[in-house]
C-alpha cells in the first residue's frame, strides 16, 4: 500500500500544535502565494483538484465555494464543522490537536477565496479538552499577526448529534435549538443570520493548504478519478491496532484493515464491517473482502463511505444487539422535529429490543421493515432516511440471525 500523508504530515511531530514547531515544518507557507492569485482562481484550483467534502457527504468542495457571492452587501462567513459525532468517527480531533495550524491556514485560504472576514469553528461540547488546544493555536496566530484581518472564533456545542447537520449547526450557532432547516430547491449558499455562509468539515479545509502548495494535479495523483486525494480513514472495534491512518481513496478495505489495523483482534474471524460511521449501513465479511474505499464503490453496494470510520466486528458479534445499540443512538439523538423520525426511531428501537429479548415474532420483522419504509423520504433532513437504510442493510444481510432470535 502506498503511504501518503497530506493532512497527517505533522501528526507524528512532537509539539506540532505550537506555532514555532508548525512553522519549522512549513506551516503558513502558502499564505505568501495566496495574494498573487485572485479569489476565483483559487476556487478554480479547488474545483480542478476534485476535493470532496470529508464530513460524510462527499460533495465537491469547489462547486460549493463557487456558490458564495464574490460581491455582496452583506458579510460572508465561513463555518467549520467540528461536531464530529458520527459513531466510529474520531479524525477531526486528530487535526485540531496535532496540527491545528494546518486548519487555520486552510481557513485563511478559504476565507480569501470566498471573501469572508470571519470564520467560526463549531466544536462538539464533549471536545472541550481538544478545543483548548485549538484555542491555544488560534491565540498564538493572533499574537503573530497571522489572524486579525480574518477572525476565527471557536464555538462550543453542548451535546446534540444533529448539530453536525449543517443547517442544524447554523441554527445552533445562531443560539437556537439544533433543528435542521428545509432545503432550498436551487443550489445556494447556507445562511447565517441571513448572511451567505460556507460550511465545510475540518478535514476538507485542512486538505486545502496541500492543494495550494502543490497544485490540483498533485492532489489528483492520489485516489481515484471520481474520489481524488486522501481521507483520514479510521478503524475501531475488533482490530488489533485501532486508530486513524490516512490513506488514498480506492485502496482495498481488507488491505487497509490488515496493514494499519494489524488484522483482527485475538486472531478471530471477521464477521461484518460498518464502513464509514454508524449511518453508512453494514456489510458482510465476504463483501469487505472485495470492496475499495471510495465513494462510488460503497454507493454501488447500497452503502456509503461516510466519514471513513470503519467499525469492525468479529465472528462472536450478535448482529441483533449491534442494530439495537445503533437504534438506541438514533432514538436518543433524533431532534424531534419531524414525526416519522421522532416516533419512528422509538418504534424501531422497541421492535428490535423485543426481538433481542426473544419476545419477537415474524410479524415484528415485517413491522420493522414497514416502519423503516415509512421513515424514508418524509423528513426535513436525511437523519431518518439514514436510519431506514441502516435497518434495511442489517436485515438484508443478517436476516437469519433476526429470525433465529424469534
Amino acid at each position, binding site marked *: 500500500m502506498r503511504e501518503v500523508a497530506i493532512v497527517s504530515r505533522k501528526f507524528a511531530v512532537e509539539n506540532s500544535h505550537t506555532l514555532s514547531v508548525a512553522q519549522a515544518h512549513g506551516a503558513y507557507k502558502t499564505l505568501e502565494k495566496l495574494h498573487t492569485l485572485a479569489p476565483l482562481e483559487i476556487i478554480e484550483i479547488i474545483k480542478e483538484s476534485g476535493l470532496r467534502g470529508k464530513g460524510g457527504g462527499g460533495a465537491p468542495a469547489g462547486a460549493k465555494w463557487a456558490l458564495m457571492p464574490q460581491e455582496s452587501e452583506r458579510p460572508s462567513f465561513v463555518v467549520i464543522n467540528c461536531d464530529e459525532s458520527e459513531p466510529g468517527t474520531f479524525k477531526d480531533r486528530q487535526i485540531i490537536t496535532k496540527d491545528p495550524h494546518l486548519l487555520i491556514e486552510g481557513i485563511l485560504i478559504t476565507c480569501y477565496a470566498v471573501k469572508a472576514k470571519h470564520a467560526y469553528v463549531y466544536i462538539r461540547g464533549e471536545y472541550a*479538552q481538544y478545543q483548548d488546544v485549538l484555542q491555544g493555536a488560534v491565540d498564538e496566530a493572533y499574537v503573530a499577526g497571522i489572524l486579525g484581518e480574518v477572525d476565527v472564533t471557536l464555538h462550543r456545542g453542548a451535546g446534540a448529534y444533529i448539530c453536525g447537520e449543517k443547517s442544524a449547526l447554523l441554527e445552533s450557532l445562531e*443560539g437556537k*435549538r439544533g433543528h435542521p432547516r428545509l432545503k432550498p430547491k436551487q443550489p445556494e449558499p447556507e445562511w447565517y443570520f441571513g448572511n451567505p455562509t460556507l460550511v465545510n468539515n475540518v478535514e476538507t479545509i485542512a486538505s486545502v493548504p496541500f492543494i495550494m502548495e502543490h497544485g490540483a494535479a498533485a492532489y489528483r495523483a492520489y485516489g481515484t478519478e471520481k474520489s481524488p486525494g486522501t481521507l483520514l480513514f479510521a478503524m475501531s472495534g475488533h482490530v488489533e491496532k485501532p486508530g486513524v491512518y490516512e490513506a488514498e481513496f480506492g485502496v482495498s478495505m481488507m488491505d487497509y484493515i490488515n496493514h494499519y489495523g494489524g488484522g483482527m483482534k485475538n486472531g478471530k474471524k471477521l464477521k461484518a464491517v460498518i464502513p464509514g460511521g454508524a449511518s453508512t449501513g453494514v456489510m458482510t465479511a465476504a463483501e469487505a473482502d472485495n470492496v475499495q474505499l471510495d465513494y462510488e464503490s460503497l454507493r454501488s453496494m447500497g452503502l456509503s463511505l461516510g466519514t471513513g470510520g470503519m467499525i469492525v466486528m468479529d465472528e462472536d458479534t450478535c448482529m441483533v444487539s449491534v442494530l439495537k445499540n445503533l437504534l438506541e443512538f438514533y432514538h436518543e439523538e433524533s431532534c424531534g422535529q419531524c414525526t416519522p423520525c421522532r416516533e419512528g426511531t422509538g418504534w424501531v428501537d422497541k421492535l428490535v429490543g423485543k426481538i433481542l429479548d426473544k419476545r419477537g415474532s415474524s410479524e415484528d420483522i415485517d413491522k420493522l421493515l414497514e416502519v423503516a419504509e415509512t421513515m424514508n423520504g418524509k423528513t426535513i433532513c436525511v437523519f431518518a432516511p439514514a436510519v431506514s437504510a441502516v435497518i434495511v442493510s442489517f436485515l438484508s444481510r443478517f436476516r437469519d440471525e433476526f429470525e433465529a432470535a424469534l
Partner: protein
Amino acid sequence: MSFCFNDANVAKIEALKKRYPSAQALSLPCLWMVQYQEGYISLDAIDVIAEVTDTPAMEIYRVATFYTMFHLEPTTQKRVLVCKTLSCKLCGSDAVLEQLKKHDVLVEHVECLGSCGTAPVMQIDDVNYENLTPTKVDAIVEGLR
C-alpha cells in the same frame, strides 16, 4: 436566589458580543458560563441570559433543555459520562458501567464521545479517560477525591 455573572464572565460576554452578528448567538456561550460558574443552570440565570441575548426567556429555556450537556438541577455527586455506543460496547463498556456501580458517582450513559479507537471511554470534568479496564476505573475514580 438571584443570579449574577461574575466579573470575568461579564468581560467575556462583552468581548464575545463583538464576534457575532447578533446577541442571540451568545445563548450557548452564556449557558456554558453559567454552568461553570454555578454548577447548574437555574431559572434565574435563564432570565439573565435572556436579557444579555435579547431573546425571550422561554426561548433560552427551550435551548437549555435541548442540549444534553446542560444541567438544570444541581448535584453534589461527581458526574461520570460513559459512552455506550457501538465501538465502546464492542470493547467492554458494560464492564466499565458495572465497575462504576461500586462508586459514589453520578453515572450518565452518553453517546459516542469520539474516542472509538481508544474504547471504552468515560469523561469526567471534560477529560476523556480511554482504553478503560475495571482496575483503571477504580484508580481514576478514587484519584478524584
